[in-house]
């Protein structure tokens, strides 16, 4: 009787330790991956910015102090490409929030017939391979044979733009190409909408609130966590945008440098010129900007994101 507690005291910690050990064993693939593919490369990126590393390495590696940062400050191409990215984001981010939300509202409408079919059809292009989707839309936006301009002719517009070849209209064209990626956004918004308790709508209905008031005072506040999540992910994604122009015109930046996005510039510095240290400096700038905007958004979230569990 007196021996039992001491055995338990001895065995308890060892059981917990065994469990923890097994936990780390099963965790190990990710720990290795996190160290080898995230943490160490992140730190290395920062170290690279103070060196003269390039892939061919004609001269020995040495620390160059802040040379790369001085080069960055004086590099007009880098800042111009950053401006291109911001300009594109200013159009692409709102569209990427509003359209999936709007389509989810439409599919979720209680008046719609065949909801399941719409959900499948709106999601379908999401699984179309990226390159195939870009080339299909490039044809769609072709000035002569594309259906977009065909439609514009049909409704009486005599001279529709040459979408992908005029600096003034290329951003709307690129946003249109991106529209096939909204499938996940629609599904997430739809799930969010279906999670809103119907009693709230019934109550609003009894109070005589119309469609707009219900949207403004019930749907939007309750959807704010979903909107916030899509906003953060969309922001991280759009700051790295460059693959579409890379596929369409091999990353020349045409028309007139308007598609020389920051990440495209980074890609060229790193991949075409194989200048690892300056590429790392650009990457670190991109990371710092992403982090700063994320923190800003999280800070602002306290004012507009509503979490049901919170008081």
């Amino acid at each position: 009787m007196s021996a039992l507690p001491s055995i338990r005291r001895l065995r308890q910690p060892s059981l917990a330790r065994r469990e923890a050990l097994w936990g780390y064993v099963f965790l190990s693939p990710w720990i290795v991956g996190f160290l080898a593919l995230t943490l160490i490369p992140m730190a290395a990126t920062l170290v690279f910015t103070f060196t003269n590393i390039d892939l061919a390495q004609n001269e020995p590696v040495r620390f160059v102090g802040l040379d790369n940062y001085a080069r960055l400050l004086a590099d007009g191409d880098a800042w111009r490409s950053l401006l291109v990215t911001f300009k594109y984001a200013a159009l692409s981010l709102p569209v990427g929030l509003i359209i999936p939300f709007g389509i989810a509202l439409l599919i979720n409408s209680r008046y719609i017939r065949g909801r399941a079919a719409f959900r499948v059809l709106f999601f379908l292009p999401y699984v179309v391979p990226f390159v195939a989707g870009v080339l299909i839309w490039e044809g769609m936006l072709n000035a002569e044979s594309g259906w977009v301009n065909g439609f514009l002719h049909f409704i009486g517009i005599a001279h529709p733009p040459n979408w992908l070849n005029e600096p003034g209209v290329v951003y709307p064209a690129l946003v249109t190409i991106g529209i096939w990626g909204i499938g996940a956004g629609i599904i997430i918004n739809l799930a969010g909408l279906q999670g809103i308790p119907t009693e709230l709508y019934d109550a609003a209905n009894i109070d005589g609130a119309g469609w707009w008031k219900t949207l403004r005072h019930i749907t939007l506040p309750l959807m704010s966590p979903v909107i916030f999540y899509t906003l953060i992910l969309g922001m991280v994604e759009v700051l790295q945008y460059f693959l579409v122009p890379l596929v369409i015109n091999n990353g020349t930046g045409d028309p007139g440098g308007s598609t020389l996005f920051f990440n495209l510039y980074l890609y060229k510095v790193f991949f075409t010129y194989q200048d690892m240290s300056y590429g790392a400096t650009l990457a670190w700038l991109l990371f710092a900007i992403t982090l700063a905007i994320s923190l800003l958004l999280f800070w602002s979230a306290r004012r507009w994101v509503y979490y049901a569990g919170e008081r």
Partner: protein
Amino acid sequence: MRSFIITFFAIAIVAAFLSPLVRAATMSVKNSGQISQTKAPLYPADPETFIYHGHAYDVYNVPVDGATRELALVTKGRTESEFVDPAHPDAGLITWEGSWRTLEPVWVFAPQWGNFLEVWDLINYPRLLFNTIALATIGTIGTLLSCTLVAYAFARFRFPAKGFLFTLLIATIFLPAAVTLIPTYTIFYKLGWIGTWLPLLVPAFLANAYDVFLLRQYLLTIPHDLDEAAQIDGAGPFRILVSVVLPQAWPGIIAVGVFSFVYSWNDYFSPLIYLSTAPDLQPISVGLAAFHSIHYRSPALIQAGTLMTLVIPVLIFIVFQRFFTRGIVISGVEK
């Protein structure tokens, strides 16, 4: 009435949304002659011809005496041309006054299935398909193995710093890839892995945040009772995972499997940078982009290529669409 209007509105939007697929499909079976003609029909078609005395002549819509007749143009002239009526070739030539250039040709439905064969050879489709399937299959196996283990750790075990490590895992979703890309590429370069499949496959075996999160959510819904029963029977943690937990987690495993397969199939950037020097090892997305940069003047072939690229992921989606939408809901909403 309201339901009719809203449903109709949704149909109009979904039709516009999917119309590029329809255009790609019709374009892929057109011949280049038709594409360059502005007044050609939207469906794939060839100008109709009629064989008269051993020669093929184009058929035009010719206005004769207030009616339009389909006649084959035999002799072209600036002010008058000679036609033959395909219905009555024995009646001889009909002379028509006017410029034949103002006439519109008669089109007949004629899909050029040969475009697909042409692309098949030009891009070496069997090779690309083999590479894509091999990369996607091995990558999916790696993802399933590693993410199942990691998700099992997060869902079933207590260990120090668990909460912190989980937050760290989720944080990697929001990390821009550029910030790790350059050293990672440099390391793979030093290892001599550039131009091999290793940079694409090895990371798959080291788990990723999305799929771990998704599987963990599934594992959390499985009750512990059976685990504990198995534990009392003396089963070790690995044995419990394989014979108790996994058989109950198959919807999550299928979801991660199809996601991972389609993701790998559609991936463009990683194979582009790691396999740019090894065309024989490239998957179809890189092959298609390379094909486009050479043959961009042949829209029919480009569109045939896009369809040959997208058919398998789309089929997988149609078969497994329930798993796709549930997977996205779990990983997108519950975080």
